[in-house]
């Protein structure tokens, strides 16, 4: 069952077989009819053969009887001895016909009945006159004449008595013994089981098988006589026979050959039974094949239907069992693929949905955090602006009062200095805020930056502070690379770090050390810049917070170090902008160690950092890593 086409083809083959079978059946009927005709013809031929053979025997017996009469066997006085001798001779002559000759002496006692005749023949006193015997015969057989053979039914094995004449004298009677007729029929080779009946012209049975003595065959004879071919199915007793009536030579008798119908037509019945059996087998095979085909066609369709219903019910991924390679199997395969795809798509959809929800949650959390940070930032900015504003309010109010009093002139001048300082503080704060905001916007195109030159400028600018704090600034910076970026940003970053170190260095002969190096690890090349001081350092719990805006260490507040609280936030933002990191630890000098690490290769940029779109290239080494 490779394909539906094959199935359909096979279906047609089956139909064809049924058709051929039907046609064969009709053909068989014809064969059967011919066979039947042949059987009938054979039967008729056998009947004819049997009749001929019997007629010959009868004629032969009659001739012998006449000859015996002519020889004078029956002449002379009638006595039993001679009769018996004649009888024996005759019996010897023919194995199946017994001839009995009786002298026709009128003086002999009259035979009144067949029984009487038998007495004459076989009793001890068979004396009868010719006249009385003839009279008896005439009474019994009124049509008897010289050449006539009259019939005289006899009981027992005797069938007929015939008067035989020789000249003017009736010499005797010829009697056929019924039973021996059978061998005569057998000589005509009738089929086994056939029975032969001999009847005279009036339908009187004169010869029959032992068990059929006295049977009524008149109806059968009438039926047969009406048929042109003298053949018909007749009923004898309760059995059907194929019977043929045939004349017995020139004798006025007829032979009925009867073969049991079932036996005669056994061949036909076998043929029909066999044909019917074959037809039945064909039919059963066709039905079975049809059933199998129907099942093979409908079962997958049903399975597909059920599976479709399940898919409709939400059971995505439902699979149909696939067997074979036919169109239905292809359909089932396509269905399975569709169902699996639906299942897959649904899972993907659910996953996407989950991912989306998670992303939304994360974004929302990030936004909330950003929002909180922003609120904190705004609060801090407001606070850090409010404080100098309050101061200015108070100071200017007080200044106004002082100016009215000449005695307070010195005090007024001192107040003015305070006013100036507050304004400076606010300017620094606003400037730092603008700087912080500018880093976030990242609006300037990157240019080549010589970090050595930037550091030189920063150190020069911070020289007054350094001197004011009495701090020694030690530079161990032999390897400062050139990079791509925003020069002012690098300037601000370095300035904030070094400025912080100077502010926080020890009051007593403070020390600030700057170290720069280019190092390589598996991620690529990095510029490392360390700023160390010998100040109080940053306590571990503050090391992350100091990089947040407006967070100042307690030490810074205690020591009243000037600052906006935004410097380190600016540093971190600038460093991250280039994919770098900045952190603070303990310095070998005793204070804080701020370490900046910035990638010199594009591949070392941390993709998680937001501001890493600007490339940094160490052009001093002639190495460019971003393909430009």
């Amino acid at each position, binding site marked *: 069952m490779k394909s539906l086409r094959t199935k359909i083809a096979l279906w047609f083959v089956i139909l064809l077989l049924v058709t051929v079978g039907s046609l064969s059946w009709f053909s068989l009927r014809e064969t059967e009819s011919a066979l039947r005709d042949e059987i009938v013809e054979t039967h008729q031929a056998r009947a004819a053969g049997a009749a001929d053979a019997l007629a010959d025997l009868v004629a032969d017996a009659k001739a012998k009887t006449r000859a015996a009469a002519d020889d004078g066997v029956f002449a002379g006085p009638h006595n039993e001895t001679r009769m018996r001798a004649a009888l024996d001779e005759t019996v010897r002559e023919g194995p199946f016909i017994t001839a009995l000759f009786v002298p026709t002496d009128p003086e002999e006692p009259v035979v009144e009945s067949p029984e009487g005749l038998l007495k004459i023949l076989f009793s001890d006193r068979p004396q009868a006159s010719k006249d009385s015997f003839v009279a008896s015969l005439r009474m019994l057989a009124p049509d008897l004449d010289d050449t006539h053979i009259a019939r005289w039914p006899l009981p027992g094995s005797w069938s007929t008595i015939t008067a035989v004449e020789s000249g003017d004298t009736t010499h005797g009677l010829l009697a056929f013994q019924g039973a021996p007729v059978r061998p005569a029929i057998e000589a005509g080779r009738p089929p086994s089981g056939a029975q032969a009946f001999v009847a005279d012209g009036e339908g009187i049975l004169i010869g029959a098988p032992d068990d059929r003595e006295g049977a009524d065959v008149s109806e059968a004879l009438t039926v047969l006589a009406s048929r042109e071919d003298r053949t018909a199915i007749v009923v004898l007793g309760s059995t059907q026979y194929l019977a043929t009536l045939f004349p017995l030579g020139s004798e006025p008798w007829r032979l009925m050959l009867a073969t049991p119908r079932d036996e005669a037509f056994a061949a036909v019945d076998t043929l029909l039974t066999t044909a019917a059996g074959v037809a039945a087998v064909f039919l059963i095979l066709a039905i079975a094949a049809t059933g199998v085909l129907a099942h093979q066609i409908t079962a997958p369709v049903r399975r597909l239907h059920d599976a479709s219903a399940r898919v409709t019910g939400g059971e995505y991924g439902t699979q149909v069992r696939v067997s074979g390679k036919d169109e239905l199997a292809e359909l089932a395969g396509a269905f399975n693929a569709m169902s699996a795809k639906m299942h897959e798509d649904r899972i993907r959809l659910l996953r996407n949905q989950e991912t989306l929800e998670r992303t939304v949650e994360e974004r929302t959390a990030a936004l909330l955090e950003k929002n909180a940070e922003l609120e904190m930032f705004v609060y801090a900015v407001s606070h850090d602006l409010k*404080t100098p504003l*309050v*101061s200015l309010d*108070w100071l200017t109010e007080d200044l106004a009062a002082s100016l009215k009093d000449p005695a307070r002139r010195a005090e007024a001048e001192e107040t003015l200095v*305070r006013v100036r300082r507050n304004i400076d503080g606010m300017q620094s704060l606003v400037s730092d805020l603008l700087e912080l905001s500018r880093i976030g916007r990242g609006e300037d195109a990157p240019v080549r930056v010589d970090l050595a030159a930037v550091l030189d400028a920063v150190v020069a600018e911070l020289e007054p502070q350094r001197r004011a704090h009495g701090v020694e600034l030690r530079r161990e910076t032999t390897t400062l690379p050139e990079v791509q970026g925003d020069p002012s940003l690098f300037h601000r970053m370095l300035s904030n770090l070094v400025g912080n170190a100077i502010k926080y260095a020890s009051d007593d002969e403070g020390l600030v050390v700057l170290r720069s190096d280019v190092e390589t690890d598996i991620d690529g090349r990095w510029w490392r810049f360390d700023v160390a001081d010998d100040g109080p350092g940053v306590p571990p719990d503050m090391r992350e917070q100091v990089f947040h805006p407006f967070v100042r260490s307690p030490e810074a507040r205690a020591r*009243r170090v000037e600052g906006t609280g935004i410097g380190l936030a600016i540093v971190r933002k600038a460093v991250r902008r280039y994919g770098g990191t900045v952190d603070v630890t303990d310095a070998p000098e005793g204070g804080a160690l701020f370490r900046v690490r910035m990638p010199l290769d594009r591949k070392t940029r941390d993709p998680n950092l937001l501001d890493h779109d600007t490339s940094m290239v160490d052009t001093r080494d002639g190495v460019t890593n971003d393909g430009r």
Partner: protein
Amino acid sequence: MADDARTWRVLVADDHLDHLEMICRAIERSPSGHRIKVVRATDGNAAYAALKEGVDMAFLDIKMPGQSGLSILRASRAEPSLAEVPIVIVSSSSDPWDIEASTNYGAKAYIEKGRYDRFRDRIVSVLEETLAMLA
């Protein structure tokens, strides 16, 4: 009582030097006629130390290095020798929590840093009221 020869020791603690100066000036120039000695402190620890050394009253900023004004207030209320010293909390905070905490801890008053004339009047009135009570 105004002519009482006694000199009142008043502690003013604020880490913001301008604010400290202006509060001190307001107290020193109060027209009450009291003789007042202002003790200055620029962080919490110094303020608490000065408090323990003995002052008649104190003006404490909240946000200060070392200790906040509120923590000094609370600590002093638990200290028998300091429990009765009137303490005034001075802050730029308008946070209700700060104000409530100050009252709960037993501050004499809470003065928010605002426009100078109003702020100065408030400082002076609280100062005079307190000194009058103490006298």
